[in-house]
Structure formats: structure tokens, C-alpha cells
């Protein structure tokens, strides 16, 4: 199947509803029940570390976005937020332009908030200047994230949920955490009947020097992706394990208990991509998914999504 056929079938089956822009969809209650089932499923697997659990808003502080490094590296993917902040005189001109179909965007001002770039990016600023405990810090976080990459391929959403497990501490701890989660992630996702691959990966850096950044990431094996077929026969990433080295430690002046710069790692489950991969693998009717998969996700026990009456 190609991604266009899969998209059409998702829309026809009512799993997704076109929200007017490429890569933007409303989701059915069935789809949402899978997302929430996945959330419980991976949470169960993360209990051992007793992580601090936080759900982030879809909008983040500008300093958080700057600290992520995304502004310089992926300016084409981020989203900042504008609003009107003018006086009465400017308001008159603004309304005139809105009414006449003019260029009202020019009269908007930047705000100090932006769309969330990745779930884990909100963790690090909370510990700005902190000295971390000897055992490190563990988090389980989720956020609605934004990527400006309009596409008709449903695997490439502009707005999607990321569920991440994050470690903050020393280099050995970060690498051990990532290895452990890559193994755990493969187990969890494989158990859902998905055919997986684990591949070294790089982020889609932008502009001159992009190749240097990407090659650096690959050579130092900073990023691994777990791939599966999501919307076509060509596999894409449904999860990733990342070692950030001291990037966030330097940016937010975090140090280990013995005075070194803190290192960090994260493992991200792409909840929407995994959900789509499950639909791709098992079909559009949840009742027809393999019993094993339904059991593991506790689907049909109606605990995840209460429909309004």
C-alpha cells in the first residue's frame, strides 16, 4: 500500500477526519482509545525507575525552545506564536486589513511562547543551575508536539503526541538508560505485532553544515530509531533513543553531584505513529485486531476512554 491509499482508507473508515491542512487531523474515539492504551502500556514498563510524571502543555516558553537547540538547527520545523499587541490606532488598521482580506499578519507581534518542539525539552529548564542527586533523575513526560512539515503522508503529522522517558545525570547513567530503553522499547512494540528494525539515525538538520551535524550524530551513535511500516511499505521511525551528551547540561548549567557537567538521554514513543502503525498492521476495525494485541493493550475493557452520553 502507498501512503495515499492508506490515508484515504483512514478517512473513509472515519479513523481520522481531515482538519483542513496537510498533516492535521481530528481523531476518532477508537483512535484515541489506542493512544491512551499505549500510554498505559508503556507507563507500566517504566515503573521500575519510579519516574516523576508530568504532562506538558502544547505551548512552551520561548527560553525552553531556545534551549532545545531547535531554533538554530531546524528553523524550518519549529512554530512560534504571534498575537496582536498594538494600540488603538494600530487596531483600526488591523481590522481594516482583516475585513478587506489584507496582510494583517504583518501587524502581529511575537509572544514569549511557542509550540512544543519535543516532550523532553520542557524537563531540562526545570533544573536550570541545579546539582543533581548521585542516582540521577528520572522522568516520564508527555506533550503535544508540533513540526512544520505539511505532508499528505499520514505518518508525517504536524501535530502529534510524544511520550518520553528521560534521564538526567552522568554519562554512564545516560548511556545505560538509553540502552535499557531501546531494548525495552523493541520488546514492547514487537509484542504488539509490529515488525521492527533498529537503525542508527540522524536528525534532519537544515542548511549549510547540515551534513556535518548529521555525520557527527551518526559517528557518535547519538540517535537510534525503532522503525516499522506506518503508512506504506517504507518503514519510518515510531520511537527513538537519544543520548544528548552534555548539550542540555551546558545549556541549563546542570551539574552532577561530583561537579561535572550533567549528561542526559531520552527514549521517545511516537504515540500517533505507533497507533497508525497498528492500524496499518492490523486493519481499521479494532475488534478484528489479534487477541494477543488487544489483551496487551487492554482494548475493549473500556477503561481508557469514557464516551460522553
Amino acid at each position, binding site marked *: 500500500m502507498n501512503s495515499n491509499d492508506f490515508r484515504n482508507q483512514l478517512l473513509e473508515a472515519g479513523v481520522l477526519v481531515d482538519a483542513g491542512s496537510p498533516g492535521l487531523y481530528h481523531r476518532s474515539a477508537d483512535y484515541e482509545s489506542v493512544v491512551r492504551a499505549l500510554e498505559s502500556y508503556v507507563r507500566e514498563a517504566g515503573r521500575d525507575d519510579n519516574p516523576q510524571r508530568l504532562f506538558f502543555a502544547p505551548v512552551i516558553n520561548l527560553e525552553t525552545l531556545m534551549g532545545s*537547540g531547535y531554533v538554530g538547527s531546524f528553523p524550518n520545523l519549529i512554530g512560534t506564536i504571534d498575537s496582536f499587541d498594538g494600540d488603538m490606532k494600530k487596531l483600526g488598521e488591523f481590522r481594516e486589513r482583516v475585513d478587506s482580506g489584507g496582510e494583517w499578519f504583518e501587524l502581529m507581534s511575537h509572544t514569549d511562547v511557542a509550540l512544543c518542539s519535543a516532550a523532553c525539552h520542557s524537563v531540562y529548564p526545570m533544573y536550570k543551575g541545579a546539582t543533581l542527586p548521585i542516582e540521577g533523575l528520572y522522568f516520564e513526560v508527555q506533550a503535544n508536539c508540533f513540526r512544520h512539515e505539511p505532508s499528505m503522508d499520514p505518518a508525517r503529522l504536524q501535530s502529534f503526541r510524544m511520550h518520553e522517558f528521560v534521564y538526567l545525570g552522568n554519562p554512564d547513567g545516560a548511556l545505560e538508560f538509553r540502552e535499557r530503553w531501546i531494548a525495552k522499547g523493541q520488546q514492547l512494540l514487537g509484542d504488539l505485532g509490529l515488525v521492527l528494525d533498529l537503525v542508527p539515525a540522524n536528525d534532519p538538520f537544515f542548511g*549549510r*553544515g547540515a*551534513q*556535518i*551535524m548529521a*555525520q*557527527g*550524530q551518526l*559517528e557518535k551513535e547519538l540517535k537510534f530509531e525503532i522503525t516499522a511500516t506506518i503508512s506504506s511499505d517504507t518503514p519510518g521511525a515510531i520511537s527513538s533513543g537519544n543520548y544528548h*551528551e552534555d548539550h542540555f547540561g551546558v545549556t541549563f548549567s546542570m551539574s552532577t553531584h561530583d561537579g561535572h557537567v550533567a549528561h542526559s538521554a531520552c527514549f521517545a514513543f511516537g504515540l500517533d505513529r505507533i497507533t497508525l502503525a497498528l492500524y496499518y498492521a492490523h486493519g481499521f476495525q479494532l475488534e478484528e485486531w489479534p487477541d494477543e494485541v488487544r489483551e496487551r493493550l487492554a482494548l475493549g475493557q473500556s477503561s481508557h476512554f469514557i464516551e460522553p452520553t
Partner: protein
Amino acid sequence: MTDIDAAIRQVLEVHGRLGAVVASLKNDDDLYQKGLSSHACVNVMLAIEDAFEIEIPEAFLTRATFRTIDSIRETVESLGLTNGLG
């Protein structure tokens, strides 16, 4: 040491974020092993272009080009600068 080498070292000193290491670097030392990060490498690339008034073609904008002082010099020379700085 050639003028080109000296200029490259100057760039590494300012943009490489390598600390005190630059003075003791050998021309064939692996700069990445000496702590040159990817972000710093991109800054070095831009500063090399400024220092020699060249534009390095896309095909040379790789990690290999900036791995050693020797490899940076070879790239600069291959772009037509053989007599050091004017």
C-alpha cells in the same frame, strides 16, 4: 608552520571550544577526539570561509573535511589558495 596552518589554528582557538588544547595540537590530531563538537565544527567551517574569503562547496562540507588541521589545509588549498594569506 605555514601561514595557512597558523590561520587555521587561530580559527580553532576562537571557535573550536577546545580549551587550552589548541596550542599543543599536532597537524594530524583527530579534532573530534580532542573535543570538537558538531556545533563548534559548523562554527569553525564558517570562520574558515571568512578567514580565507572562500566558499567551501557543499560536497566538502563534511565531517571528514574538518577532522584534522591537515585536512582543513588540504581543502583550503584545493580551493585555490596556495600562498597563504595575502
